[in-house]
């Protein structure tokens, strides 16, 4: 559906996006993740033809962005960050204007606007000026705007930023619902959101792709070390270290925290080994009381931090 080839953007000397390659399939919900200033918005802006890439190209279906930008715009719906809409227009007037520009036939216009109003839940604000709406409603109007011509591809730049938790759930529901038939590219820096809504996640850092894959495959790829956390009562670190380090597959014992007489240690184990049974047996031989014993699962949060931290 969308092919992005070695897309690069320089702002003067600053490289915002550096040689990005992406192949987005039809019907995919792709989440673009990255810290602030990673180049997410710039990438999306180039996808939609708002910015010209310094080099590289974007192909949508059979169209290339530098030649057929108008054709691509007809296939795309775009919601920029913060939904910057005309403040002094009424919601209905605005959607009507968008319908005109999108060249929707007169007879279908009203029914289409009604349909979108239902889908995005903006029926009750149709006759209010956009400037007076709350952020959540503005975002929904922006979403309605983006979907006006029933585009095959929706590009959403941080669709849930600044919304309250209920609104976030609402918008996510809408995205999920639309995503059944459409290709959606959305950017976000909220990890749970990407996890909840996206089929595929691309992590961008400093203009480059740091990781690309489904949530599960990303989790697998990063969990290279095998960690076990243990909290023990009535034990001192020295003897715990001696005891547990004697197990073959345990490489290192590190103290994380000690409060009252609760000792929190982390065991670094060999990647393929599972020494949990041995650890349990060792502890059972002693007078210590085992309070907590778990393997931290790799969350998207960890992967993200791992991939995007400085150096």
């Amino acid at each position, binding site marked *: 559906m969308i092919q992005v080839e070695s897309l690069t953007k320089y702002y003067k000397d600053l490289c915002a996006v550096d040689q990005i390659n992406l192949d987005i399939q039809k019907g995919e919900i792709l989440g673009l993740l990255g810290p602030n200033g990673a180049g997410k918005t710039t990438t999306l*802006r180039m996808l*939609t*033809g*708002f*910015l*010209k890439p310094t080099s590289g190209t974007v192909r949508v279906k059979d169209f290339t962005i530098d030649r057929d930008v*108008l054709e691509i*715009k*007809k296939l*795309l*719906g*775009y919601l*920029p960050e*913060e939904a*910057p*809409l*005309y*403040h*002094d*227009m009424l919601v209905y*007037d605005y959607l009507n*204007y*968008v319908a*005109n*520009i*999108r*060249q929707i036939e007169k007879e279908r216009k009203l029914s289409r606007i009604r349909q979108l109003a239902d889908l995005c839940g903006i029926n009750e604000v149709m006759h209010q000026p956009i400037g007076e709406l709350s952020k959540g409603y503005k975002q929904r109007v*922006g979403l309605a*705007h983006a979907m006006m011509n029933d585009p095959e591809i929706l590009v959403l730049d941080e669709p849930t930023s600044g919304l309250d938790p209920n609104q976030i759930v609402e918008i996510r529901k809408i995205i999920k619902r639309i995503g059944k038939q459409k290709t959606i590219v959305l950017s976000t820096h909220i990890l749970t959101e990407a996890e909840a809504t996206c089929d595929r996640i691309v992590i961008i850092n400093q203009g480059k792709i740091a990781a690309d894959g489904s949530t599960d495959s990303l989790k697998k790829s990063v969990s290279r070390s095998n960690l076990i956390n243990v909290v023990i009562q009535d034990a001192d670190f020295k003897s715990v270290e001696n005891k547990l380090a004697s197990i073959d597959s345990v490489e290192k014992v590190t103290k994380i925290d000690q409060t009252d007489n609760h000792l929190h240690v982390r065991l670094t184990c060999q990647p393929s080994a599972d020494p949990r049974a041995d650890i349990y047996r060792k502890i059972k031989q002693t007078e210590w009381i085992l309070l907590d014993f778990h393997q931290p699962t790799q969350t998207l949060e960890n992967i993200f931090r791992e991939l995007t931290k400085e150096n």
Partner: protein
Amino acid sequence: MRQVIHIFNKEFKAYFVSPIAYIVISVFLLVTGWFFFMAFFLYNQASLRSFFTLLPIIFSFVIPAITMRLISEELNIGSYEILLSMPVTFTDVVLGKFFASVGFIVAMLIPTLTYPLTVATIGQLDWGPVFGGYIGAVFLGAAFSAIGLFSSALTRNQIIAFIIAVAICFTLTLIDKMLFFLPRSLLGVAAYLGADYHFQNISKGIIDSRDIVYFISTCFIGLYGAHLVLQEKH
């Protein structure tokens, strides 16, 4: 072309849903009405000469106020990004906004038709110069709109856009009155550049192709400039 019409419609309506239109039109009518009728009975002549003499100077303040928000507001709130995500070209955007501004100027001039009507009831009015004057006023308004649109594309700050446009329009209006500062070799060129010079020709009732060409080429340069600036921002 259809996109131009849609953008024109939206922009033209936008003038009248906000108070700008009413404020600008009232100020315009107040100022022109006051200056026109103040001297009218002293001259004791049934003509609109003094109205048309004043018009370029008033226009060079009023029109920048009309055009200043057209593009800079979009740049400022970011709606420009949304506009360009839809299937429109820069030419559509620039032309749509330009015609909206010209349309607004026509709407602003319509109430002033009461001046010639009033004068015609008091004395013998020669309608030729009046028609010429109104045609000239629309051309002048279009040229100044194009300049205003250009300066509005330059910045996201409406006040700066206003000041740049006033500076250019005011210079064009006064340049043929400043000729004594210039070396003789430049006199012809400078006089030709003066918007007032061409406007006064038309408002005498003489519609000369040179004057029309001047206004159309000013429009073209302004609009093309705006187009280039937008493309550069892209």
